[in-house]
């Protein structure tokens, strides 16, 4: 039996961030991780000698710069490199190359549609405007709309002021935007299907929505509101894989005195007299603390590691009905060489970044149809990145690793449970898709890891393998996240907090949830705040 100020359940990136800020405030913190490795879904694992896979999350753009600087993550080994030159593959021979140079990018779009090339400027201005507002909320605690506490009222006034600053026309547009589908949103700008498909793809990543589903335009924004060094919408690769982010956060947390225990899965949160007092580990050990912070998703927290009797009425049902639908799989492939893609010219500015096997709007919607019927997509949307083209630490020289994010893949199949055979068939579907655009691709495969939502849930603990710890739809965003009335990181049992992506601002490797939760906890414990204010580019 041991005593701490705070227990953080789960060493995902938000749990580590939370622990770092609590420890920085002088608290005695322990992080309990069920796996033998830390990082949750931000990991780099060597499953085949010489290759380091970012097994789950694979690119980074949302990490809050202010936290990166404040926790000195650079000194703890984190290096985020922007990557360039994604190719989007149409159903047939069409290819859309993205260049970071504005002029080259314009010419490439013009090749597909002179109209769309011009409309892209308007699209980018509008998206940037939407991003700038939402970015202001990331490192802030959502106000409670039913509260009359000065802090909540002040926070609402702050938001109203930011919102008002948009101007009349933009306020209308913004409200409309939140409930639209990605397809409807893009129809306001573009005519070319491949351009639309490429732009729509961030609208479905990680969500069990299709490009035509209302709400997918917000998901699109969620994926483009990040930045790398001020280039909003750009994505970066963590040198050494996503595990480098977790390692740096762990380094910062430990430097401030936090303890991290692996192979320490939590069986149950102990509640006495309506207060969380500690946890029981899977090995039977008990750990006690003044507060308990769960980095697990809301469903797992309240339906798996809490006793139903310990919860106020209705919370179990809310957790059970929390929308956390798995929709994506991940195929990590070690390659003996750089794959060649058909219809793609030799060019150092493209073909070294990402590949979007987007097809068309219809292909993406049909892929979603399969998911609805409890099957993986037979012609899936695949977003790939070859980090080894940039990162010398993740594959042997001249050889490569390719991260393939796949939609859609259901957590449960209509024809019975997942089996290793079905998992491999799913993997083969992905390879077949890539092979269509890269003849000979299969011959380059040295090793591969196929992860369906089933594997992701089993290994990482994300319910249904949902990468956001819960859908990012407006009913589960902001002060509604995870549940209405619990948007400020304090949970229905006293001294119990949540700090994972199930809380505001949601999924993505941002560290914002963990930091926001730390700020609330420190207020409750009457400790000075250690969490910095965010940086903004629009001020």
């Amino acid at each position, binding site marked *: 039996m041991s005593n701490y100020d705070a227990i953080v359940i789960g060493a995902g990136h938000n749990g580590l961030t939370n622990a770092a800020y609590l420890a920085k405030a002088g608290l005695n913190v322990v992080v309990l991780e069920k796996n033998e490795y830390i990082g949750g879904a931000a990991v780099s694992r060597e499953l085949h000698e010489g290759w380091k896979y970012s097994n789950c999350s694979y690119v980074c753009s949302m990490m809050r710069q202010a936290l990166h600087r404040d926790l000195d993550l650079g000194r703890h080994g984190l290096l985020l490199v922007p990557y360039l030159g994604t190719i989007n593959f149409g159903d047939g021979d069409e*290819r859309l190359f993205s260049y970071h140079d504005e*002029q080259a990018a314009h010419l*490439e779009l013009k090749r597909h549609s002179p109209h769309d090339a011009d409309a892209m400027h308007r699209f980018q201005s509008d998206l940037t405007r939407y991003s700038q507002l939402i970015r202001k909320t990331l490192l802030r605690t959502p106000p409670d709309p039913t509260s009359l506490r000065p802090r909540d009222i002040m926070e609402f006034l702050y938001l109203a002021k930011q919102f008002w600053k948009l101007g009349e026309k933009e306020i209308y547009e913004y409200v409309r935007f939140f409930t639209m589908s990605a397809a409807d949103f893009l129809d306001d700008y573009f005519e070319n299907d491949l351009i639309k498909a490429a732009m729509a793809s961030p609208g479905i990543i990680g969500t069990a929505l299709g490009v035509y589903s209302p709400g997918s335009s917000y998901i699109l924004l969620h994926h483009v509101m990040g930045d790398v060094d001020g280039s909003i919408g750009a994505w970066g690769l963590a040198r050494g894989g996503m595990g480098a982010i977790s390692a740096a956060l762990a380094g910062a947390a430990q430097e401030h005195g936090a303890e991290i225990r692996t192979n320490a899965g939590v069986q149950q949160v102990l509640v006495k007299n309506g207060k969380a007092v500690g946890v029981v580990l899977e090995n039977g050990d008990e750990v006690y603390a003044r507060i308990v912070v769960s980095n697990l998703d809301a469903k797992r927290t309240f339906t798996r590691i809490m006793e139903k009797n310990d919860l106020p009425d209705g919370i179990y049902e809310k957790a059970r009905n929390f929308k956390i639908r798995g929709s994506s799989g991940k195929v990590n492939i070690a390659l003996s060489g750089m794959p060649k893609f058909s219809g793609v*010219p030799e060019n150092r500015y493209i073909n070294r970044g990402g590949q979007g096997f987007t097809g068309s709007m219809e292909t993406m919607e049909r892929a979603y149809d399969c998911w609805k019927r409890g099957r993986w997509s037979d012609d899936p949307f695949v977003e790939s990145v070859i980090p080894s083209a940039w990162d010398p630490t993740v594959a042997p020289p001249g050889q490569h690793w390719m991260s393939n994010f796949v939609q859609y893949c259901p957590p449960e199949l209509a024809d019975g449970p997942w089996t290793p055979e079905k998992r491999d068939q799913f993997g083969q579907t992905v390879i077949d898709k890539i092979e269509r655009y890269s003849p000979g691709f299969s011959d380059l495969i040295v090793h591969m890891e196929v992860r369906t939502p089933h594997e992701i849930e089993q290994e990482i603990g994300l319910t249904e393998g949902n990468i956001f710890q819960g859908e990012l739809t407006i009913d589960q965003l902001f002060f509604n996240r995870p549940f209405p009335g619990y948007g400020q990181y304090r949970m229905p049992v006293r001294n119990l907090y949540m700090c994972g992506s199930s809380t505001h601002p949601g999924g993505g490797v941002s560290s914002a949830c963990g930091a926001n939760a730390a700020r609330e906890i420190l207020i409750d414990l009457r400790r000075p705040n250690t969490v910095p204010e965010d940086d903004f580019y629009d001020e």
Partner: protein
Amino acid sequence: MKFDHTHFRQALLRTPFHDRFVELSTTEEWMAWNTYKVPRVVDKLPTEYFAVRSGCAVMDLTPMEKYRISGRGARDYLDRLVTRDISKLKAGRVTYVVWCNDEGKVIDDGTVFQLGENDYRLCAQHHQFDWLLMSARGFDVDIQVETHDVAALAVQGPTSWSVLAAAGISNLEQLKPFGIADLRCGDIPVTVSRTGYTGDLGYELWMDPANALQVWDAIFSVQGQYDIHAMGLSALEMVRIEAGFIMPGFDFNTAEATIRNGYDRSPFEVGLGWVVNLDKGHFTGRKALLAEKSRPAKRRLTKIVVDGNKPVGEAFIYDGKNGKQTGEIKCATWSPILKANLALADIEFINGRLPAQLWARIDYQRELKWHSAWAECHSHSKPFYVPEYRSATPPMRY
């Protein structure tokens, strides 16, 4: 123009005149303009500047966005699009226009060329196809991008007419300012307009890109008689400020590219009230502009002369020496011909009027050391430099 996969080998396109600029370039100072590679300075900035003011300067205009607007509804369409009354525009004439969004904020400026009946060319600084098509709903009009299909060359300066005449482009002497004529340079058809962005006598030549080099060579073939210089965009920046011309996207943010509320500008605010005709009938942005006109002016892009000779770069404007900040300089140049610092400044009005005093706080370097100085500024309502000869028809012969 057809784009193929290989364009990435050159991230920037080459204009049809590019090879000639390469031959003449001693600076190798290139820049991007609207997806084309163009010279910033070809040889020496003062030489290029004085070519415009004293002799003849030749500049590549090909990257200018060009749209062909035709069809029975073309005139009505354009009249609805732009703030100016163009219903009286005639074939063979050009007019300067500006167009706004519904909020009455400037999207871009440009020139409308009426090439024939129901046949117009719109030249714009920025990409406009998106906006032009959106505005075309309900009009019987066809809009094509012809940026890459028409090569364009500006021939500017007091001797420009003499140069073109000597180069074999005849029948130009009766062409009035803002007139267009279909002529020939030798056997080559060339459309010539008496237009420019320099404030000097000058012409713009429009041609098939296939003939571009022949026209160029014809012009430069008379170099023995006349001093002709190829010119880059740096010299253009100097002369356009002298002439009091504004540049959307540089002197103020264009409406469709504006992210922050209040950072866009109306035609009145950028000093283009004279191209707004609120009586001509409905046009896009009219309602907002009517409302704006009924209120006291909030700000104005103002031509100012900054005292002294300290190089004016980016600077704040104050309503007095050590006063309150009231604006900022958007572009500035030293005028070699006027021996003065000229600038366009975005200035906030006080009670609907320009502040009585304007001072600029100028930060400048001397041998890498920064200094700071106050300089009084004087507003100027007319263009800074307008040579009388520029509108004479026929032009002065050299």
